[in-house]
């Protein structure tokens, strides 16, 4: 039996990887993947706590999060594709229209 701490540790590591990836990479595709990473880190901790507390609500929530993440990925990728077609690049440094 793997103790809860390990799951939490794994979740923290993956989440941190996601955050660092999101903040440091300039490629939007990578940033999207980092976001997915963060979401899944949360999923791990949810499932772990669900098992630990013997409460199925955590796992139900995970199913929702996966659904939302799938939808988000679909939309995000679609935007990404059209962005690339219009700009010829998916690098955030070249996308400065919103700069004040």
């Amino acid at each position, binding site marked *: 039996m793997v103790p809860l701490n390990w799951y939490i540790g794994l979740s923290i590591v993956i989440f941190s990887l996601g955050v660092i990836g999101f903040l440091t990479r300039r490629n939007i595709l990578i940033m999207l993947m980092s976001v997915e990473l963060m979401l899944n880190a949360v999923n791990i901790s949810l499932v772990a706590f669900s098992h630990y507390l013997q409460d199925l609500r955590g796992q139900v929530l995970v199913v929702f999060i996966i659904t939302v993440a799938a939808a988000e990925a679909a939309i995000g990728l679609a935007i990404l594709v059209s962005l690339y077609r219009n700009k010829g690049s998916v690098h*955030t440094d070249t996308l400065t229209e*919103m*700069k004040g």
Partner: protein
Amino acid sequence: MDQYLLLPLLPLAAFILNITLGGGLFKNKAHWIAIPAVAGSFILAVLCFIDAVQGKVVNENVFTWIASGTFQVSFGFLIDRLTAVMLIVVTSVSLLVHIYSVGYMHGDKGYYRFFSYLSLFTFSMLMLVMSNNLLQLYFGWEAVGLCSYFLIGFWYEKKSASDAGKKAFIVNRFGDFGFGLGVIMIFLYLGSLQYADVFARVGTLQGQTVSLLGYQVDLITLIALLLFCGAAGKSAQFPLHVWLPDAMEGPTPVSALIHAATMVTAGVFMVARFNPLFILSETAMHVVALTGAFTCLFAASIALVQNDIKRVIAYSTVSQLGYMFMACGVGAFGAGVFHLYTHAFFKALLFLGAGSVMHAMSGGLDIREMGGLKKFMPVTYWTFLIASISIAGIPGLAGFFSKDEILWLAYNGGTVGKIAWLTGTLVAAITAFYSFRLIFVAFHGKFRGTHEQEHHLHESPSSMTVPLMILAIGAVAAGWVGVPAVLGGSNWIGHFFEPVLGHPHVSGGHEDEWMVMGVSVAGALGGIFLAWVMYSWKPALSDALMERMKGVHRVLLNKYYIDEFYDLVIVRPAMWLSTNVLMAITDGKIIEGIVNGVPKSIGNFGERLRKLQTGSVQHYGVVMALGLVVVLAVVTVWVLP
């Protein structure tokens, strides 16, 4: 009731039609709207006059105009004998001027605009004379001033015309300021603006004083003088006369209608209308009489040397208005209004005649370039001559009867009256002189203009000459209603006005009356003779005299330098204040400072704020993550335990 309402509304309707549709629809047929309207008003005015002769007095309120607490003003009509005569004067002269304008303004690009302003003026003037309360009078008063401004500056592309319009408007502000204060004081002390109430209660003010700048001033005198301020402005009396000669920049029919026959007499009408108030204050009466007498002499002396035909007539108007005030000031309100009525005809005729001359001279106004016009334009000549004889006061014509009535009643009016009489008699001679100077210089002798102008000389079209002829009949016959008793008449008009304007005091006998009449007629004949000698028989004489009295001539030619004086004392300081204080400091620094400063500081703030918006998702992400850390830290450290 309805017919009285229709009287001013007909010209108003014509104005609305012409101003809205004139430019597109009527164009050079605008007179087909304006003339029938004013003709309708004229017919109604005649009906009113017939009623008034039978002694009918209409005093009705049509509707409530303003109701605010105790301040009640209704919109109503008072048609008594004074109003009835004014109605006849206004509508008849207006009608003739309308007809004349068809010829005079032919081909002008503002044709419809001209007729709409004339209609608006007629409406306003009718409102002024028909009003039964002070506020409506004030409304008409300002509205005629506005029309006068429009029409003086009718040819607004011309700088001198638009300047003259502004001058007329601004000078009138000075007078109207006093008039407005007078109206307010009447309401404050009498609680009503209806003539009937005011005249009924005015006696209660007798003996009351009011503190003004530390002095105790008689209340009635103060009110009367404030009202007279307005009258002096509108009727171009001495300190405020400067606008009227400049107003001649407007089209000549306007000069005839507004600046000779009707609007400028509004002041006289107002003083006559308020005779129950004025007679209670001896001081105010003296001021009115002496202002009138002074203006009369002052303006006549300027008219002696002017070379612009319209300006001579304009100064003559100022002078004749002085006569009317002189009459009012000595208590002869009836005589004043009688002169107003005869003056309207012969002065309108003089102006329209001058317009006809201008028409032939292609706009030339200088009498030194005219001469010998008699044979080119006989109708204009004869009608002009009739008007001149009338204004000179030769027995039998209109001007004689009214002028003689004024002089005779002034003679009976105590010390001030005697001064007025002496001035008036002297001015009668001067008037005859300058009127006939015009006749001899412009119409007799040889033509002195260019050859081209001479070739162009012609009599005016019949739309212009017919009004001249009709007015000439008026200039001859208008006075026959006031033939004095010594000449076998009954002075019908004097008795006609008695219910409204009172009965002037007469102490002298028939011999005195003959003397007064004889002196003024002799003066007038002397003036005409002198004019003939100097300008027809021996023209060298006038040049020699001009040479001898160079200084006097220059002062008169420059109108006593009054304009220059006002320019120095009022206009320049006002301009200085405007440009250096109001424009540079108030507007430039304070207002612009606020107006520009507020957006500038907001802009600066925004400039700094926009630095936060880098447009880079990562920055937002960092801030979000750090924010989350802070929130979590706060929750774990302070909230949870």
